[in-house]
């Protein structure tokens, strides 16, 4: 790890194919800043991405990275971190990827509390498949597959995380560059699963949850007397359906990462050239 790492070191020279103005540009820049600010470098960082416009993020970053199958980025990230706890592991994806096809993994990743960060680019729509409703879409949101609205309740990802025993639950807005990077940085620094739901507008398919909408409604918890270590306070904010918050909503400061609780301190990559020295003892167990 070197101290002169800058966020541009995390940039690859691949040209993003995101639509001009897509919220994911800001989300990615914030992630790279946060990684650099926390003293990581590309060679000790592993980024796992989901599938979707959001999931392309790993392609545009420079680090060790894997772009997996739809919805399963979290287990990949967990495997990476368990096998080498010295790595900085960051998982990124969209609201469809994380809360729909990957919803099961999300809940279990939260409760497993592996020390990694999870950034979800929540644009409240499926971007890559060209504009169908997503699990965070509003009930009356009209899309190609919901011409009369979705007729179902949107998922509240923060509430899901809280009820699953989340130890770090935060929300940010990709176009508030400074705050977004700060919040992701806190997620990285958190010992345990640092979850950040990022409002990352889709300028092509979502004309409801727009930059203007978020700019007008978002309340920064920094401007309130919110105590992120207070569970009840967090619960109240999370269940407040009328507001969009930005900031760290809940943090359990006593959290200890799962891999640490499991006693994993070393990389599992190094193994001897043959069976372990005492391997015949394993055979003798069967006497």
């Amino acid at each position, binding site marked *: 790890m070197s101290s002169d790492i800058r966020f541009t070191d995390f940039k*690859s*020279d*691949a040209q993003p194919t995101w639509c001009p103005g897509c919220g994911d540009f800001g989300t990615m820049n914030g992630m790279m800043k946060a990684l650099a600010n926390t003293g990581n470098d*590309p*060679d*000790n*960082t*592993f980024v*796992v991405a989901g599938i979707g416009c959001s999931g392309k993020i*790993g*392609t545009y*970053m*420079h*680090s*060790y*990275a*894997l*772009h*997996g*199958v739809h919805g*399963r980025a*979290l*287990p*990949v*990230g*967990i*495997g*990476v*971190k*368990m*096998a*080498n706890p*010295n*790595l900085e592991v960051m998982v990124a994806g969209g609201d469809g990827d994380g809360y729909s096809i990957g919803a*099961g*993994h999300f*809940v*279990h990743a939260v409760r497993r509390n592996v020390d990694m960060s999870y950034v979800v680019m929540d644009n409240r729509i499926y971007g890559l498949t060209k504009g169908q409703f997503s699990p965070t879409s509003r009930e009356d949101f009209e899309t190609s597959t919901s011409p009369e609205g979705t007729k179902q309740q949107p998922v509240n990802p923060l509430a899901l995380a809280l009820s699953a025993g989340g130890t770090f639950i935060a929300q940010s807005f990709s176009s508030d560059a400074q705050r977004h990077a700060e919040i992701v940085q806190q997620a990285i620094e958190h010992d345990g699963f640092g979850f950040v739901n990022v409002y990352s507008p889709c300028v092509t398919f979502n004309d409801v949850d727009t930059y203007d909408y978020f700019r007008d409604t978002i309340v920064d918890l920094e401007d309130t007397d919110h105590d992120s270590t207070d569970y009840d306070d967090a619960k109240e904010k999370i269940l407040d359906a009328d507001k969009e918050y930005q900031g760290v909503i809940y943090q359990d400061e006593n959290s200890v990462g799962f891999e640490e609780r*499991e*006693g*994993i301190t*070393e*990389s*599992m*990559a*190094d*193994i*001897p*050239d*043959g*069976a*372990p020295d005492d*391997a*015949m003892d*394993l*055979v*003798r167990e*069967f*006497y």
Partner: protein
Amino acid sequence: MPDDLNWAIGGEAGDGIDSTGKIFAQALSRAGRHVFTSKDFASRIRGGYTAYKVRTAVDRVESVVDRLDILIALTERTVDENMDELHDDSVIIFDGERTMMSDFEAPGEMTGLDVPLKRLAEEAGGAIVRNIVALGAACEVAGFPIENLDEALEKRFGDKGSAIVDTNKQAARLGQEYVQDEYDLTTDYELETTDNDYVLLNGDEAIGMGAIAAGCRFYSGYPITPATDVMEYLTGRVDRYGGKVVQAEDELSAINMALGAARAGARSMTATSGPGIDLMTETFGLIAQTETPLVICDVMRSGPSTGMPTKQEQGDLNMTLYGGHGEIPRFVLAPTSVAECFHKTIEAFNLAEKYQTPVFLVSDLAMAVTEQTYEPEQFDMDAVEIERGRVVDEDDVEEWTNEKDQFTPHAATDDGVSPRTFPGVEGGAHMTTGLEHDELGRRTEEEEIRVEQVDKRQRKVETALEREDWSPREFGDSDSDNLVISWGSNEGAMLEAIDFLEEEGVDVRFLSCPYIFPREALAEEIREADEVIVVECNATGQWADVLEHDALERVKRINKYTGVRFKADELAERVKQELAGETAEVEAE
């Protein structure tokens, strides 16, 4: 009386059938006798018929046969379930004081020994040792020195204190004495003991042990019969070597975690059975496309769907050979015996890392629940070699970087094998993706690059074909024109079947296949032989189909899909009929 004895204890699930059977098997193994066990069980925890069978001889035993000599029947149903295998010299031990068996009489010429198991158990110290009383009685019938039971009882109950051990020893003796005092046995079974040292283990345990020997450090799985034992074996043990077992939320997660760990440099594995393999299929392609080494173990059971979870079948061959959309270079290994489960697991890890592909290790329920004795040297740990393939570290990463200092994880090398860096290696950072990509791992749809990468991945298989030994295991009469081919766990039954056939003057050459892929040499064998019979535990003959396709020739087939593995004598009969041109009726059991 021959020394080859078939023994069983049966009753209701929850009656302690398994542990009693295991104690007996261990006692025999420690007395230097070979053992081969099998289980009949239903998919429920309490209630329902269950049995543990032990076949034992001084010579190696490789399979089950259609004969039962001593049966401990804790319920009357146990007798009914095994009626076909009982014969005139069989001895049935039962407890007439238990209401269910109070008016039981052994059928035909069989000997029924009414032993008050419960009453004697209480005398020894508690009704819970009832089965041990029965074991003591069985030792008397089998002519097996009861002292040999003591060690097994110590092993089993030692950590519960000497009082418990003594109660058990006492119970066994009361059972033995009761038979001595009350019955004048006309049977003359006599189980010899020897000085041989054997270990007794099942296929799942052998896979787990092989994984540790091979340096496996990460295992993630989701419990499923009959693969769970692999996970249970590794839990706790792999930790001693700095590894970990993670119980995932489902198989999708399990295989993706294993993939993540593999990318981080760990030797990594997951194991499951049919329904879990279905869920994992999604990730097969990702493993191949990202060129991640991963061992995926499928301990097959009866399908389709939830099928018969506690029954045997070899129905997933097509799934492991072809599962997943698109075309996936892979290797499929099918261990042919419990010991081979160990060896093939080690090989699977080496192949996975040398060729950066998914490797399927296909075992089945019969091997998973069968415990077999081996000389410990069969599991020669000194012979284990670990080959990690083209792993690149800081020192030679430059060799694999382009003019812009970018690492090329998918370089199109001559042998198809690309360089691999583990995260943390400076200068080796790279992207890998399930999307088609170029040498850098960057997404592409360019025709030329697509073809280059597909060819490159396929080339790894061709390289492996040249570099590795894919020979089948050969047995029987090497000059015979009658060729029998099987894959996986049928080997043991076929080995004994060869002896049966020999006695009847029928010679066969037997090729037992642990490698399902590649298989060019086998096609040649088929073309050269007069009669070819392919033996497998499935209805459609999945392996036979593959071989016919390769050899462009028809083969005969012996299939069994009752849920029960082949028995040696049954298999011999069917081979004989097949060679004589008769097609046997498939008998449902």
